[in-house]
């Protein structure tokens, strides 16, 4: 097995375990940090594919900026662990797991049937997404979506300012 495959398996495993832990954890801080784990593992997978710039952007924007704000707010609100109420319904107890298995099976079947024929992905094949290329495409081909997104974010900031003004 080549090093690529081993690294892929390791980090895919970390990503899946973190994702499961994100849902299962009762404490919001633990959930938020699991999400950081998912993002970090995904960044490594991007690196394996060759998308260095995307990996760095993922770490800087998602793990570094957005999730830090999440954690910051959770700490500021001092949110405690969630109290789980265990459902006593007999139907859920007996049929829950089999029905869930059937649902996942059906879903995967439908997705597989609907998806177009996929081609094999090779490690390190996506090196064309460097900083320069992304920048050039962003300001030529995708300039309209880019500008629309920035205006959307500006509107969101203005909304937040207006909402916060009442408090002051």
């Amino acid at each position, binding site marked *: 097995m080549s090093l690529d495959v081993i690294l892929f398996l390791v980090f895919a495993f970390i990503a899946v375990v973190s994702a499961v832990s994100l849902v299962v954890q009762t404490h919001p*801080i*633990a959930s938020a*940090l699991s999400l*950081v784990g998912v993002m*970090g593992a995904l960044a490594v997978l991007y690196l394996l594919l060759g998308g*260095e*710039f995307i*990996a*760095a*952007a993922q*770490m*800087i924007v998602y*793990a*570094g*900026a957005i999730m*830090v*704000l999440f*954690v*910051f707010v959770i*700490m*500021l609100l001092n949110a405690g662990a969630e109290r789980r109420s265990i459902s006593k319904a007999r139907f859920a107890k007996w049929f829950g797991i089999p029905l869930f298995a059937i649902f996942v099976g059906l879903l995967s079947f439908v997705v597989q049937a609907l998806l177009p024929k996929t081609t094999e992905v090779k490690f390190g094949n996506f090196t064309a997404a*460097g*900083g320069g290329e992304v920048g050039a495409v962003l300001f030529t081909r995708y300039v309209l979506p880019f500008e629309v997104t920035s205006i959307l974010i500006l509107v969101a900031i203005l909304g937040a300012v207006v909402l916060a003004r009442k408090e002051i």
Partner: protein
Amino acid sequence: MNYYLLALLKAAILAFVFLTALAYLQLVERKLLAHIQLRLGPYRVGPHGVWQPLADVIKLVTKEDLIPSHVNKFFYVLAPMIAVALALVSIAVIPFGPEVEVFGVRTWLQLTDLKIGILFTLAISSVGVYGVALGGWASNNKYSLLGGLRSSAQMISYELPLALAIAAPLLLVNTLSFREMANGQAGFSFGFIPNWNIFSGPFPQIIGFAVFLIAAFAETNRVPFDLPEAENELVAGFHTEYSAMKFASFFMAEYANIVTITCVATVLFLGAWHPLFPAEYGSDFVPVILLVLGGLISLYHATQPARRWDRWTFPLFGVIAFLLAALFLIPVLKPILIPLFWFLAKTGTLIFIFIWVRGTLPRFRYDQLMRFAWTFLFPVALVNLLITGLMVALFPK
């Protein structure tokens, strides 16, 4: 030579030098602060306290590793690990010198060169907030929590001017890789002004450098931005509840961040290992002259000893300085040592400024800190970036 063997060897050397430098940086800081305040500083362990870092390490390792009963154990243990691991990673992409030949093996004085080197350091530093924030939160102590919150708010705020200040010189060198960045700043304009980004056209990055340095102080939680560990309001801030090696981890992370960010500043603005003036005017002899001067000063002080042991410690320091000066004259070592000297000189100067500021300036108040970042530093960095972009577009190299 085998690629893996070479990489392992380089990593081992870098790790050894880096960790030793971190330990000694603490001694340098204590000594410098002491002399600024007209004290002597550490003086008892070895001549002039040179073995003090060693004694500190032994003390910290052998201390009882205490976990308070009221903390969130998992995150309490995890936080210092995150802090120190992330702080030690970034140094891997810093180039300390050009490609050199050692025992017939050609190699760069750099562990690895990423195409996105500068983004890598930014990513690592932005994730590094978690160590401090989590440590403060998991300690379950109101002082620690306040320290952690202050730190994360401060680091998020100052990351913006820092990133904008980094973007401007990137426009000049037109690359994200540290190695190409350093190579792009070689040479001299008019024969004597170095092509460093801080001096070179079309728009010298002096303002950008100032903004970067100020934001770097805040990013590393140093005075005058050391509110996360303001000892007269928050005991010791986020690491109040930590002791022994866990405390040492936070301490090491802080110094590692200082070293990394000064190295980044050196490569980004100060032309990495390229000398201040051309080799024709004798820039290769600067380290020799400086070391010989240092040795002579030591010997002069040895003739009029203020303390009993100065009679043999100062001649020893002098002889060591002369030996080091002789090393710089050996033709085989010259191509390795001269670039390393210039890199070390620039980084060392910046670290000295860090310590100097700590000995000089008082601490900001929290609202002043935030207002300074958002209403002054951010607009200045933005205008600097805009002007640089305009100049690069108008006068391409």
